[in-house]
């Protein structure tokens, strides 16, 4: 696998990943245009130089054949001549660029929250998910926000990129033209079984039996093939891990079904939903569940424990404190950590927060049996 494939049925060429959006063809065309113009200059120039080397390397002391010092016509020609080509490149590039900056009316709007170090896509109606799911041939507009530092959203297959500057509203749009595939349920079940107990590795290449025979695929936990989505503006420690995937659905209905399935807890127990939220909403980037210290305190045995705050006070980790820390993370920061967590105010429903609390309780040995009492107690405390 000298030049590994991004997707098994890729039409990626030597220079580029697969053309996944309506921009791709245009951008690649401009790229090729510049490439061929450049080669048309580069190759003859270098050939000329090498020829000169062969022809004019002389013994020391030999006088040069000519001492010509200038030739105004020639110089003017090569100064002005190439400018025409430059204008061509500029015009082509700018036309495509304006196209890429102007979203068509009625684009499908998805909110994007970028944070250190992860993504949350907002599908409306309280549905949030780290993966970007969109519909084929449907112009999609991303309204992007960052609350910490500058990030940049880049989907190579779409040839689209835009910085997400905190303090500003940032937009981008694209129209995907290639849909993701979904592997069969049996194959997915097999993969799930193989990956039991580990976090899902998106980058892992699986050998999967499909209708077209055996293929090498990277898939999401739900069995979709995908395009990579990177953060391309340096944003700190785990910048290189600030990646997610784009899944392109064949139809709007398919996307809506997926959104529905991910919109709320549904029938599953609270702890389990909390665990899912922990993975999906970016908590895992900063809070471990194995006791190791990352950017934030570990969640293991957190609930019910006492923590010193940066102000020097002691704080019991109870339901109120957890809720406050999710909504206003910078109000009470545990000593030894930076106040860097973004607020989840308005992004988690009460049920979501309760689920996270339930999940925290489930992985803590300090969790008291009578949570209601703790809550009442802390309310008294803060009333003082």
């Amino acid at each position, binding site marked *: 696998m000298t030049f590994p494939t991004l997707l098994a049925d890729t039409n990626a060429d030597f220079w580029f990943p697969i053309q996944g959006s309506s921009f791709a063809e245009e951008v690649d065309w401009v790229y090729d245009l510049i490439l061929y113009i450049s080669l048309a200059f580069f190759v003859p120039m270098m050939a000329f130089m090498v020829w000169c080397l062969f022809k004019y390397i002389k013994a020391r002391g030999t006088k040069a054949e000519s001492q010509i010092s200038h030739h105004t016509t020639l110089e003017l020609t090569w100064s002005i001549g190439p400018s025409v080509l430059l204008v061509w490149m500029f015009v082509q590039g700018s036309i495509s660029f304006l196209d890429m900056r*102007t*979203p068509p009316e009625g684009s499908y709007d998805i909110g994007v929250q970028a944070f250190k170090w992860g993504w949350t896509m907002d599908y409306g109606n309280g549905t949030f998910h780290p993966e970007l799911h969109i519909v084929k041939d449907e112009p999609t507009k991303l309204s992007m926000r960052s609350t910490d530092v500058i990030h940049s959203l880049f989907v190579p297959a779409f040839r689209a990129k835009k910085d997400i500057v905190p303090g500003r*509203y940032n937009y981008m749009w694209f129209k995907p033209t290639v849909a993701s595939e979904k592997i069969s349920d049996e194959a997915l079940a097999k993969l799930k079984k193989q990956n039991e107990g580990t976090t899902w590795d998106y980058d892992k290449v699986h050998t999967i039996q499909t209708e077209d025979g055996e293929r090498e695929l990277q898939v999401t936990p739900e069995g979709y093939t995908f395009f990579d989505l990177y953060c391309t503006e340096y944003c700190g420690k785990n910048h290189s891990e600030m990646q997610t995937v784009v899944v392109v659905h064949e139809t709007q209905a398919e996307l809506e079904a997926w959104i529905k399935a991910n919109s709320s807890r549904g029938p599953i127990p609270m702890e389990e939903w909390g665990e899912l939220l922990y993975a999906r909403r970016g908590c895992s980037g900063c809070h471990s569940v194995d006791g190791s210290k990352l950017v934030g305190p570990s969640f293991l045995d957190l609930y019910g424990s006492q923590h010193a705050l940066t102000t020097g006070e002691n704080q019991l980790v109870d339901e109120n404190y957890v809720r406050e820390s999710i909504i206003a993370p910078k109000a009470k920061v545990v000593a030894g950590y930076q106040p860097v967590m973004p607020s989840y105010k308005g992004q988690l429903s009460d049920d979501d927060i309760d689920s996270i609390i339930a999940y925290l309780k489930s992985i803590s040995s300090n969790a008291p049996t009578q949570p209601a009492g703790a809550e009442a107690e802390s309310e008294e405390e803060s009333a003082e």
Partner: protein
Amino acid sequence: MSDHGHSTADSHDGHAEGDFAHPLPLPMLFGVFGALVFLTIVTVAQANYDLGSFDIAVVMFIATIKAVLVGLFFMHLAFDKPFNLIVFLSSFVFVALFVIITLSDANMTSEAFENNPNDAPPAAAAEM
């Protein structure tokens, strides 16, 4: 030692004897100072009147006249080598370049600023 002065104060054309000093006449210095003080009073006085959007223009105009006076006479650019004047003025060209482009870009993108007092999030800006 001050008595040994070569009394070149009055001979402005120092170049003739290889002398390049060019002392400015005192009345000129005092005249310029008087003009500067007068302009300061004018600029303070005009601040009491609301000239609307002309306000900044008027203020900058007065300040620029003052700056020109200081430059030409106190800094004797009026009598200096032209090259020095070019050097000095060129700096303003680059300042203008820097300020104008940066400012106009901030102006054109200001609707995207989250805490722009005049906005709610722009609903669907035609252009991003």
